[in-house]
């Protein structure tokens, strides 16, 4: 054993928050679980395993120092007030126009595809 634990008073580590992400099962995305307080990554992983993985509810964990997370919360950039419906499938409504097109062409509505 080395005497690593025998640091002087000025060298005490400090606890800081680490964010914990967990993958519930193979193929799932990593989801935020919560956070733990730890002085380093090794202990943060240890706590994360105890609090977020002790009953087989996770197949993988990430711990990330909270200070290393960069956040963007600006509503101008994330929730702009302009109409962005053209970027979403539901933003293109053509039911009535399709009906009109079928009426003009005299073709029946195609049957639903069989899966």
């Amino acid at each position, binding site marked *: 054993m080395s005497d*690593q*634990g*025998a*640091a002087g008073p000025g*060298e*005490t*580590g*400090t*606890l800081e*928050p680490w964010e914990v992400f967990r993958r519930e099962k193979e193929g799932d995305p990593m989801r935020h*679980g*919560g*956070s*733990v*307080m730890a*002085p*380093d990554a090794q*202990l943060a992983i240890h*706590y994360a395993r*105890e*609090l977020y993985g*002790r*009953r087989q509810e996770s197949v993988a964990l990430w711990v990330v120092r909270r200070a290393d997370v960069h*956040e*963007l919360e*600006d*509503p*101008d*950039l994330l*929730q*702009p*007030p302009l109409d962005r419906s053209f970027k979403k499938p539901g933003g293109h409504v053509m039911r009535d126009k399709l009906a009109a097109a079928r009426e003009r062409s005299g073709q029946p509505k195609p049957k639903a595809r069989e899966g």
Partner: protein
Amino acid sequence: MTDPLSLDPVLSPQERGRLPFNEDLPHDERFEHFEAHVLAGGKVESTDWMPDEYRTGVLRFVEMHANSELMGVLPEREWLMRAPTLRRKLALTAKVQDEVGHAQLLYRVAEDLGKPREAMFDDLLAGKTKFHNVFHYPTRSWADIGVIAWLVDAAAIVAQQALRDSSYAPYARTMKKICWEESVHIMHGRDVVVTMVTGTDEQRAMLQEALDRWWGPLMQMHGPRSPREKDRDLHWRIKAKTSEELRQEFLTIYVPRILELGLTLPDSELRRDDDLGEWRYTEPDWQELRTVVTNHGPKSQERLEFRRVSREETRWVRETILRAAGAAA
């Protein structure tokens, strides 16, 4: 390429102010935006601006909850070495570990509101903060373990399920995880109870005796009735239901499940009033509740002393961890 963050805001000041809680606004206006946001069902994150009243309200609520999880394992740990079978011992050990884990999760939520964990432990030991009434009582037999795990946890989960919709989002998220684990404890407790009522006469009698003793504290657990409009925790949607709503819900679900086992409840007034659609019961002893939660209960001082000693005995671990991390840095 232009950095999008360097562009001028396109939202009008009103629209920006509505997304809480624009720091350019004067305090009163921020407060109004915050209040409107919360009352409309909006969520608050730990990094959001929040009024002091909200911050201290959430902190007090979560801290009391964390204290209760931490102190709540002490009655149960008394039976770890006396569990009747290996499987029961494993289940009870896992439950104790879960409850301590809940305390860890909840103290973490509280820490992010600005109060260090050590300060919360100091206040708990000094009697400045409280823990739930049910954890101030002795455990007399193995039947107590069944009653605690089934009915104390059931009464707690009724309250906790309502907290999954708390306006304080980190608390709400934590409660989802906690409720899931608590549902396991309830099944463990119910299994202990059902096993005993289908056992010998002595086992049945032991269980009935435990239920008779715990019924009073269980009825007190959610607290006295209080008017909805005066409750600030309800106003801020920190919690969703009044004490009486929680008690009624508990009775509705659990009285039939207790009676179906052939057990009796020690309250001759207890009955469902179908006209009113609610339960009638003998008024719980609110003086007992006040006495107990101010640490004058039968086991209050002994359990706090246990906590004090265990905190001192493990201090070297916390200090060693910090020293090791400091030396490695």
